């Protein structure tokens, strides 16, 4: 999918994925430490460090704290992460000493399925865990990232297959069944406060905890987002239109990903 017509009728030449990555990178302004998942979150976090937030500490579950890769890594354990990190610690240490006590202010995740309460499924598609329609990679670090980071940003492409009314399997808890559920479970972080897609931005309604559309990316019709969402999507008052990517944002992003797409094929079937 290419471009979107912007105000004045001119047609831009950025892709929907680029808009998504740029929007996700902007969301990291003002944050200190980010626990980064692989794929789309990693590209966005690296863009943020280049552009908006040079002091952002990138933490990967492989145990690299303060990694400064020159290109987004293909895996969360690429050698350049260790070579450029402030510190490399063991995997038990990264989860027990750094993530678990709530030292990391933002967790950056993707999803194979995401529901109206921001719950994430990366385990199985289909109602029967033992006989899944699609076996996905599983939990990885996500359940504890979603529980223990100060807040969670989700970056994921918008489609009815992904944006479902209820996830088939709760791998990582968003707002659970709705208001009060995180508190009842004793989860310390605020949960998924921001969902950035290739079509727009969703944020939880403060009272109902249900994800509502708060911004459309330039050139995207509301109806397009509604038909790509598997529940009756609420639209927040004062729906915004995202600022299009600047030339500088596009230059740095394309410089960062010269040979690879910004895409995340880890859920490819």
């Amino acid at each position: 999918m290419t471009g979107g017509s912007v105000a004045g009728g001119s047609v831009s030449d950025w892709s929907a994925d680029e808009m998504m990555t740029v929007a996700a990178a902007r969301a990291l302004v003002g944050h200190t430490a980010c626990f980064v998942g692989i794929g789309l979150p990693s590209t966005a976090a690296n863009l943020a460090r280049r552009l908006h937030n040079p002091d952002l500490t990138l933490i990967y579950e492989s145990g690299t704290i303060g990694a400064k890769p020159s290109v987004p890594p293909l895996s969360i354990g690429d050698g350049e992460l260790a070579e450029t990190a402030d510190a490399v610690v063991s995997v038990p240490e990264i989860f027990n000493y750094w993530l678990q006590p709530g030292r990391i202010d933002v967790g950056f995740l993707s999803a194979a399925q995401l529901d109206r309460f921001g719950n994430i499924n990366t385990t199985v598609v289909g109602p029967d865990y033992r006989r899944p329609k699609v076996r996905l990679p599983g939990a990885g670090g996500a359940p504890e990232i979603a529980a223990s980071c100060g807040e969670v940003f989700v970056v994921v492409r918008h489609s009815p297959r992904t944006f479902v009314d209820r996830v088939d399997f709760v791998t990582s808890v968003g707002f659970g069944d709705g208001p009060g559920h995180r508190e009842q479970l004793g989860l310390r972080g605020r949960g998924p406060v921001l969902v950035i897609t290739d079509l727009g931005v969703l944020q939880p309604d403060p009272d109902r905890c249900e994800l509502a559309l708060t911004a459309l990316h330039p050139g995207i019709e509301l109806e397009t987002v509604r038909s790509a969402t598997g529940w009756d999507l609420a639209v927040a008052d004062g729906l915004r239109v995202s600022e299009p990517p600047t030339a500088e944002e596009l230059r740095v992003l394309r410089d960062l990903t010269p040979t690879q797409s910004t895409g995340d094929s880890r859920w490819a079937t």
Partner: protein
Amino acid sequence: MAELTTLAEAVAALVRDGDMVALEGFTHLIPVAAGQEIIRQGVRDLTLVRMTPDIVYDQMIGAGCASGLVFSWGGNPGVGSLHRLRDAVEHEWPAPLRLEEHSHAGMANRYAAGASGLPFAVLRGYVGTDLPRHTANIAAITCPFTGEVLTAVPALNPDVSIIHAQRADRRGNVQLWGITGVQKEAVLAARRSLVTVEEFVDTLEPRPGAMVLPTWAVTAVAAVPRGAHPSYAQGYYERDNTYYQEWDAISRDRDTFTGWLDRHVFGSAVGAP
């Protein structure tokens, strides 16, 4: 003291049908050559354990070595699914595969408890997810001091743990550096252990941040140059990303996979790419 031996002899001596076996490595230093030697020796009915089963576990599962998998993330990092793992889970080919599924935090703590000689570990984890409904080895536990309800997971004590390291001296002291994942815990938790190394050296020069596993904590050490390929060994060779990308097509189809297995595992010498 660790026995210095060959990969084939070590696998024959240490890995038995029905064992629980952990080949650990977190993207870096994955003991791929050892996994392929297990395939060559036709070991069966293994319960494979690993936080991040990737393509060497895909190969072992597709080759019929495993009847169970204990894991927290199974995929081809940055590429997509593990097709042999999925075929086993979705269609029971070449055999059914029991899954025991955790989160990374849970698995890391299970190894740490095993290495510590404790029966279980405590963490803040899994709460509100669907994992405890399907994984029996996750339980609630009340803190005896504060009354807070936390999560317990049992220790992992594999029959055999296998890791790959950069080098060892001729007494069998092992040195590894870079991303060292959960390898120390995996070795110390296991009843028997095998370390494959890039090379033997006369003296292990100290390196900042390097981990040393003393020879008396390891069962066997074998030199297997490029034994972590297509993953990488920091200071020796880079990750072969093309291999990971090509594995997607090779592993999608059963016949293509078995043809690959015949040529590259059964038809090759130890450690060959």
